């Protein structure tokens, strides 16, 4: 520990000398990217699976082919924020201290909000050491709406966009006459509930909302009492924004009570959830997401997934959007021949990029929100070429909405730094 403390000063010196040197000497330096997500603690499985995808994508797409920007390797620096806003602050300072200027982060909107605020403040106070936030998964609409920031780019559809697609899909199903909404009592749960009710009212005024329930996040032992209410309400379907153990427990309780009604979700797949739902959840659980899981549209992406599975047999490519984010960021770097966050940010704005699935993605410049096609998939074992959790079960896309139909207005008033 002692020697580590001494190296703080060394790091500082190194940083100063690096900054003062010309770019010529940087040619051999790797391009260093921080990955800041939970890598220890309860939420670590999602964080580590994301890290593996990013790490693999960087190696597979770039490092094994001689690197980027004329021979520079991509180095992923994992930073463990334990999905806590406080630890995010600590790790952010570490990132800055180590000279990391690009941060990938995805889990928890609370963390994403904190990070976005911190980065905006930091960049304003330290214009010589700016930082860019690549949000690959946090779906709180506010991040690209009223709280949007020039330094934040989102590579996932936000909650309202996803619910738009989900309610379109529900609206088509004439069998559904009543809906029960249940969610965790926190901001995302409330966004899901409020938006679902609003959209269903617009699209299918005849669907009756027979329940709108919030439960404390991560504190419910047994969901059966809630399911009893769902049953007695006579609901034809359920919408929930639950994730993690709350998602599994809820789904299991619904299945155990013999209720055979569709459950519309956001996060009911991968990282053990698919395996746990197994046969019981077949054709009942549906998810809205980007990047179709089955069928995979292109050979390129199939090869990528197979190569990933060969290296990480116990993991899946759960979040293809991480790869999209990396590819678009590298494209921006190559276009500008720069790793400066401000320059990259400008290049990313309004970028149109064809991803592995052969689809054109659009990063809207006015609010830094990505647009791509969205899918509703069902949990099943039929027609599933790429399963999840090695369980034989996986997601099969049933409904597609092309990118241009997912576009929503944004109230973002972006404050652009002056250069």
């Amino acid at each position, binding site marked *: 520990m002692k020697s580590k403390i001494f190296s*703080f000063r060394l790091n500082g010196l190194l940083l100063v000398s690096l900054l003062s040197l010309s770019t010529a000497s940087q040619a051999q330096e790797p391009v260093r990217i921080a990955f800041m997500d939970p890598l220890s603690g309860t939420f670590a499985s999602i964080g580590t699976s994301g890290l593996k995808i990013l790490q693999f994508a960087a190696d597979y797409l770039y490092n094994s082919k001689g690197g980027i920007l004329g021979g520079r390797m991509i180095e992923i620096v994992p930073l463990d924020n334990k999905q806590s806003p*406080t630890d995010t602050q600590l790790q952010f300072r570490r990132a800055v201290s180590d000279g990391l200027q690009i941060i990938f982060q995805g889990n928890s909107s609370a963390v994403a909000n904190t990070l976005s605020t911190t980065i905006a403040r930091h960049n304003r106070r330290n214009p010589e050491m700016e930082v860019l936030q690549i949000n690959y998964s946090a779906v709180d609409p506010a991040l690209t709406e009223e709280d949007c920031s020039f330094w934040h780019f989102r590579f996932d559809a936000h909650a309202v966009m996803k619910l738009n697609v989900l309610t379109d899909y529900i609206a088509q199903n004439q069998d559904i006459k009543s809906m029960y909404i249940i969610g965790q009592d926190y901001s995302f749960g409330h966004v899901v509930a409020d938006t679902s009710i609003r959209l269903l009212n617009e699209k299918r005024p005849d669907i009756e909302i027979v329940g709108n329930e919030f439960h404390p996040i991560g504190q419910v032992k047994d969901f059966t009492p809630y399911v009893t209410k769902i049953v007695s309400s006579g609901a034809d379907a359920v919408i929930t924004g639950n994730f993690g153990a709350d998602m599994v427990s809820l789904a299991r309780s619904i299945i155990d009570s013999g209720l055979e009604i569709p459950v519309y979700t956001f996060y009911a797949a991968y990282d053990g959830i698919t395996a746990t739902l197994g046969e019981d959840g077949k054709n009942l659980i549906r998810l809205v997401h980007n990047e179709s899981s089955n069928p995979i549209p292109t050979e390129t992406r199939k090869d990528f997934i197979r190569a990933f599975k060969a290296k990480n047999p116990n993991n899946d490519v759960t979040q293809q959007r991480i790869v999209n984010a990396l590819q678009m960021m590298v494209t921006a770097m190559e276009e500008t021949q720069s790793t400066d966050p401000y320059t990259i940010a400008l290049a990313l704005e309004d970028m149109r990029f064809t991803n592995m699935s052969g689809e054109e993605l659009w990063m809207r410049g006015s609010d830094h929100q990505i647009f791509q096609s969205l899918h509703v998939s069902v949990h099943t074992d039929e027609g599933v070429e790429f399963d999840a959790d090695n369980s034989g079960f996986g997601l099969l896309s049933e409904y597609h909405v092309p990118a241009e139909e997912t576009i929503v207005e944004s109230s973002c008033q972006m404050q652009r730094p002056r250069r």
Partner: protein
Amino acid sequence: MGMIKKLSVWIGYLIVLLALPQFFDSILAISIFNQMAIAIVFSLSYNMLLGQGGMLSFGHAVYFGLGGFLAVHALILIEFETVYFSILFIPLIGGVIGLLAAIFIGSFSTRKAGTIFAMISLGIGELIAATSLIFTDFFGGEAGISGDRTFGPLFFGVDFAQDLEIYYLAAIWVFIATVFMYLFTQTPAGRMANAVRENPERAEFIGYSARRVRFISFCASGLFAGIAGGLFALNYEFITEENLNAITSGRVLLMAYIGGLGYFIGPIIGAVILTLMNSLLSNYSELWMLYLGIMFILTVMFLPRGFAGFIMMHQTAWLRGNLKQLALPYLISGIPAFLFSMTCVAMIEMMQTEEQSFSFFGMQLATDAALTWIVAITIAVAAFYATRRSLPQLRDAWESANAIPASEKTES
């Protein structure tokens, strides 16, 4: 200790606090120092409860968090110019809120010490943490609330935009808080807290109400926890629910206990150790929490008085000038013990990693080779055996170093 000697300790403490950034000046180092500053005040305040007052609390984060929330609200008020107020005194706002909360909660929870107090603190902690998630307007839900410390009147042209500037401010507050907490231990109330901890009945016999003494300690502890919360608000410019829930309460217990209850300096040591582990170790191993847990259990089992207690154990030997006698036995036992724990760490890491090889202190270890495992297990067993064998010698050396005259020596 003479007056001058005491004073010089305090001046030394102040100098160390203020001089630290001169030696380690990276952003990370400053950030760690700021964390330490907050942790020191917080864990010292916890020690007022458990170490001095004998009240085991599982909800001390309540006062820290409430103080912090009000402090961030104060920052917001300053930013929107509702009030004109220097941010220098933000920690005081936190302290006042912590005190008020402690007066209210302490009025019924300090009636009893022991298990009942512990349980009430647990219940209150859970209640307030859960409530904070329900009242999202004030507490900001799971994302918390954030402010900006650069508003309000400047202090000699300093706007506190940089962490380093906050560090100096925090260092001053830490010093003030430490002095006052120390002075509290010297007041009759502070001294009676010890008496009540040891034997409440006797304390009552000499005319002190045990409940009243506990209440005073409790309020003082809430005050300083609130100050720590205010420092947190200043440093991070935001606060969330996790800062008043059971995790933070557990962490402060860990800090105070590992450092050493009952010694004034103990919580300071604990705060420093845990902050370093939290911010440095977590980046070397995903399993750092496992190591922390093991370390905590071992500390409770083998060093019941914490690290400070371990250091203070040597006081007798030191006063007799026998400390040198212990150096060699310590080295003989310490080296294999260290080797043993490091080999265990290496094996745990090898089990965890999915890579073919991983680097451990610069060594590349092949995780799937049987040889690596055989070597590791052999080293571990040998080191463990060597440690076991050397312990009796250490014990003998310990006894002879502490012995007054050989004839009065008692067993174990």
